[in-house]
């Protein structure tokens, strides 16, 4: 019975380790940009803020498929594993961005609705 308990404990600890390791991998993190905090809601009517997200984490070899790595990123990772002092690791960067619509007042107090591209991170990857 004790042996079985010990085995279960080891399995759990391995699972936790895996999760922690996965947490350090490149992924999307929340980053809320509040226009209210900087006093821009006087002229930005809507939204009062938006979730922009950011990318952070490591890109260890082998790079997972969901990280949208390029062939070059794989090669760079390989070379980095051989010569870590000379070649840096690949970067965790946004690979897919989406736009937001903003309703604001211009210099003549006219109401404008505009679509801005590349404002929200949709996916992160190793590039």
């Amino acid at each position, binding site marked *: 019975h004790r042996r079985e308990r010990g085995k279960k404990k080891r399995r759990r600890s391995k699972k936790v380790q895996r999760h922690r390791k996965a947490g350090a991998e490149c992924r999307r993190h929340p980053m809320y940009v509040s226009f209210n905090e*900087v006093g*821009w809601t*006087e*002229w930005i*009517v*809507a*939204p009062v803020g938006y979730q922009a997200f950011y990318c952070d984490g490591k890109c260890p070899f082998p790079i997972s498929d969901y990280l949208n790595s390029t062939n070059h990123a794989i090669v760079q990772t390989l070379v980095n594993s051989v010569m870590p002092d000379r070649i840096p690791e690949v970067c965790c960067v946004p690979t897919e961005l989406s*736009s937001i*619509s903003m*309703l*604001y*007042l*211009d*210099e*003549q*107090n*006219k*109401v*404008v*609705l*505009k*679509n*801005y*591209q590349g404002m929200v991170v949709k996916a992160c990857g190793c590039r």
Partner: protein
Amino acid sequence: SSSSSSTSSSSSVSSSSSTSSSSSSSSSSSSLKVTATKKDNFPQTHDDLFKAFEANLLQIFGLKNRPKLNEKTFVPQYMWDLYDSHKQKKDPSAPTSGRGYLPANTVRSFYHIDPHFMDCTEENASTIMFNISNMMEEEILTAADLRIFWDPKFYEYNYRGAASSSDISIDNSYDSNYNITRDNNNKNMFKKLKYFPIRIEVHEVISPPRWGSSSECITRLIDTKVIHSNSNTSTWVVFDVHPAVLKWKQTPHLNHGLHIRLSTATKNPVSVQPHQHIRLKRTADIEQNEWQNSRPLLITYTDDGKGVPLKRSRRSAR
């Protein structure tokens, strides 16, 4: 910063060479100055960083400075609806007229202003102007809509009031289907009057009348719509005014406004206060909020070549 640093380094070199005798000392002093100028370019404090960030963001927005608002600006309900439709990623064409437009990523709204010239004196007509000077030159105008509010309740109310006062005669020269005799009672009169089709014509003012002269307005018909007042729901009537707005954008001094003319579809003049059911001018009994949500509105669709277009998707075929 590299170009500025290089120029500053060259100037510092020349100045230092003139003052100091040894070349080594001059080079060392120049390098020090270069590093100093480079550091100056970077934001030093949190405020500097914030200002630099704000300047970048305003540049993205196409603004030079943070807009200084003098008064409380009213945001039209139509713009809210449009914003909500884009936010929820629904069909952006829903609250618009449904005509096929070229892609655009900017939508601007304009309230009308009173014309600076003498109004085209004409019965059942009104002249309104729009200041579109905030539209950027590099933006391509893809569409422009004039939205006019139609309120059937007001229409009915005015006819009811007019009939009860019995001081306004009904013109017998109307279409035979709608002929009303004085012997009819008021109820029948309302029923028949309610279904009068009204034609709204939007003209571009080419040449306004001059002050103190009896010259007439020279106008050009842009769009026309016929309203059948058999529905009880108030609605917005949308007119395509793209040619006029495009002309004003290219040549602002030719902006003399729009002339809106009302008539019956039978080419006879409207007899009883036609301005009351079409909201072109503010009446004394209308609240500020109600007027802001029912006054004429010019909507322009422009594209600056950046970003995802706010295009109107077409309805799928059955």
